[in-house]
């Protein structure tokens, strides 16, 4: 039985705030009481995701594009003081007939493979860099897989601003064991470093498809590995909240245990940094025409401490009414403290944080552009 892991106390917390109009950082010392917002980097760029490499603590990658210009990846090797552009950003093969609109997701590779990163794009493609983001190549095992189009549909299928590959997860025990999730296709697993893939979606609802329990075609919104137990995955899906404990191949809908008045639709999900039984979601209104706002205008996180058997509403400090924002799939994260800090960015440009695992919330920044991603380092 996996147990809650211990953690060395970090000396500070740095949040990377990727927005529709640039990248900001928000930094606090270990007290997590006072936060300082940086000036923007890449002002005017649409920054879908930015990550710090946990293996060296100083390499940062940011996936960006602008309204006019094509997609690229910027990289810093000095904690964001200076940036260089990737020499060859993620791009499909010229004869593939496919064109990257934007890089949507960045994942540092396995601890044993310094310099390796993975990127997920829209339309859906998987890319790999072996040189800390300087050059990128398509992962042919997925991009040229003979079943890719059957799994994912065409590039026109999927979410309104394009189908997205996200939640690229590397098993900490085995760099060849990977998961990916696609907003048009579902969750897929590889055991040979991306050479081949198979769907992992049984048990997951796909209310928008005519087939009951289809093998693929689902819409996962966010998938996370449980810390300390990489056999457990949590998923916030378009059609509910799920958990799977490998080697099982069937997901369990733990969102059925959410309050019926709130439902189990949302975009983000985060796992506790040390406790595999703990995770958070941030529900949104997925009824009728899918308003995609906090249900009833009353935002709240929900936390489970028992793997999804029960959920507790956590909204102390948040607006009690008339707050019509929500949280995108990359825009919720945790820090590494043993009593975890939980953070999220809103579609209305606010950053909220809790230094006590969601019991109390405080607004850490406001008046930013629409927030696409929040990552801690």
């Amino acid at each position, binding site marked *: 039985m996996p147990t809650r892991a211990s953690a060395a106390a970090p000396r500070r917390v740095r949040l990377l705030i990727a927005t529709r109009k640039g990248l900001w950082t928000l930094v606090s010392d270990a007290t997590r009481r006072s936060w300082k917002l940086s000036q923007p980097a890449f002002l005017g760029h649409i920054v879908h995701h930015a990550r710090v490499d946990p293996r060296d603590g100083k390499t940062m990658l940011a996936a960006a594009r602008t309204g006019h210009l094509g997609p690229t990846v910027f990289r810093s090797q000095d904690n964001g003081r200076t940036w260089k552009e990737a020499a060859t950003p993620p791009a499909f093969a010229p004869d593939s007939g496919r064109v*990257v609109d934007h890089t949507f997701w960045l994942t540092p590779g396995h601890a044993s493979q310094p310099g390796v990163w993975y990127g997920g794009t829209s339309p859906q493609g998987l890319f790999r860099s072996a040189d800390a983001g300087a050059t990128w190549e398509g992962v042919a095992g997925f991009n040229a897989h003979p079943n890719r189009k059957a799994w994912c549909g065409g590039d026109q299928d999927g979410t309104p601003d394009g189908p997205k590959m996200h939640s690229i997860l590397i098993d900490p025990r085995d760099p060849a064991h990977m998961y990916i999730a696609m907003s048009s296709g579902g969750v897929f697993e590889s055991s040979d470093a991306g050479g081949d893939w198979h769907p992992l979606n049984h048990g997951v609802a796909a209310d928008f498809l005519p087939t009951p329990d289809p093998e693929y075609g689902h819409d996962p919104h966010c998938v996370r590995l449980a810390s300390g137990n990489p056999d457990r995955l949590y998923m916030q899906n378009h059609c509910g909240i799920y958990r799977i404990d490998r080697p099982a191949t069937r997901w369990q809908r733990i969102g059925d245990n959410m309050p019926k008045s709130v439902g189990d639709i949302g975009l983000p999900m985060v796992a506790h940094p040390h406790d595999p039984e703990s995770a958070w979601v941030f529900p949104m209104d997925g009824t009728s025409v899918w308003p995609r706002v906090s249900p009833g205008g009353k935002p709240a996180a929900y936390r489970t401490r028992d793997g999804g058997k029960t959920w507790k509403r956590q909204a102390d400090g948040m607006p009690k009414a008339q707050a019509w924002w929500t949280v995108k799939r990359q825009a919720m994260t945790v820090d590494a403290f043993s009593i975890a800090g939980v953070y999220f960015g809103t579609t209305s440009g606010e950053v909220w944080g809790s230094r006590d695992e969601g019991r109390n919330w405080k607004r850490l920044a406001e008046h930013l552009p629409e927030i696409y991603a929040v990552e801690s380092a």
Partner: protein
Amino acid sequence: MNRTFRVAIPTQLRSYTGGAARVTVAVAADPPRLADIFAGLEAAYPGIRFRMMDEAGRVRPHVQVFVAAKVQRDPAAILNPGDDIMIVGALSGG
């Protein structure tokens, strides 16, 4: 024999040209084509072409190119001596 062409660079791409609003590109190919301009820009300012053109070789939807004051989006278009090339961020917002 190289022919040189003047190219106007939009604000969106001047981070690549060191802030220069106008640059010159020398083209050895005969006949010179618009694609040679993009190649020349890429050689001088690495990374700039992919921001303007996708991997399929098409000018991106919100980038506009004028050759001798006429819209020209075909990379195979032949350039005439003295043609000025103007790259702009297309009107795509309010």
